[in-house]
């Protein structure tokens, strides 16, 4: 595009773009104020903030506690990452329930599981949301004891706890 055309049109483009953005800001904020399912303009997105429930309890479980439950075989670990990552390596005995394909995997994965049993979901990364989303989903599906091991795959490995790979 010749520079003269660009130079000639840039002021108009800037002015119109500003109009569109200002209109969008007003509409976005006003509609949010008016709706019943509005979200706060500023929210706590820290790990603690994301995992705290309406009753004030946290969904997060400390590694030490998860380790004890693992050793006593008192919890079921669910890996919320994709199937490929699960096959490469996962917490020993964990089941794969990829959040992105939860509807496909869910009926098979929960076969034989008691909805009262303690379930610990995990994924990888401090801000990975898959395990959190999966935990909320499980709670909505009637599971009463669901916890999230934050950054589970990494912290589990860092502490040399038992892992395994899948042959699939």
């Amino acid at each position, binding site marked *: 595009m010749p520079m003269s055309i660009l130079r000639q049109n840039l002021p108009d483009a800037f002015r119109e*773009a500003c109009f569109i953005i200002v209109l969008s800001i007003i509409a976005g904020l006003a509609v949010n104020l008016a709706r019943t399912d509005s979200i706060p303009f500023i929210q706590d997105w820290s790990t603690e903030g994301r995992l705290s429930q309406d009753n004030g309890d946290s969904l997060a479980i400390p590694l030490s506690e998860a380790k004890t439950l693992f050793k006593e075989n008192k919890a079921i670990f669910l890996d919320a990452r994709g199937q490929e990552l699960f096959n490469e390596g996962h917490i020993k005995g964990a089941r794969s329930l990829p959040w*992105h394909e939860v509807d496909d995997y869910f009926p098979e994965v929960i076969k034989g599981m008691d909805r009262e049993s303690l379930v610990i979901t995990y994924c990888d990364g401090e801000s990975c949301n898959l395990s959190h989303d999966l935990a909320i989903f499980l709670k909505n599906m009637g599971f009463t004891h669901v916890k999230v091991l934050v950054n589970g795959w990494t912290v589990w490995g860092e502490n040399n706890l038992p892992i395994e790979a899948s042959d699939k």
Partner: protein
Amino acid sequence: MNSFLRFFYHLTRLVLGAVFIYASLGKILNPGAFAKIVFNYQVLPGELINLTALILPWVELILGACLLSNRWMTGASSIAAVLMTVFIGLILFNLARGLDIRCGCFSTKPEEGPMDKLTLLRDALFLVLALCLVGLTYYKKTVYHKNQLYTV
């Protein structure tokens, strides 16, 4: 502007307008779910996540409406090109980091699946269309101004 360019100009603005409006609707209807998707990209500070989730879909909707109605075209086409460039940058950044996240481009539902190279290809196509539209819009406006100048 010859008839082919005029046809291409209207075609690109209608296609992009429809795409942006379609992309905005799910996000406007589910701001909470979209905020989570914005968070998952892990590029914005916490204070800006909800504001982005509330405002960005309206930018898409209003610019889509501008494109469909052929109004404020220099601004709307420029924003479309800038947005597509930013989206592609974000996808590249997260694919390079190996983050397993959803694009959130057209849906806030988990069924959309994680983003991949096809998502990138699709957005690259939209970027090419947006850049063509910017060029045609600027050209059309310049020609129009020139014609007006000569007819005065």
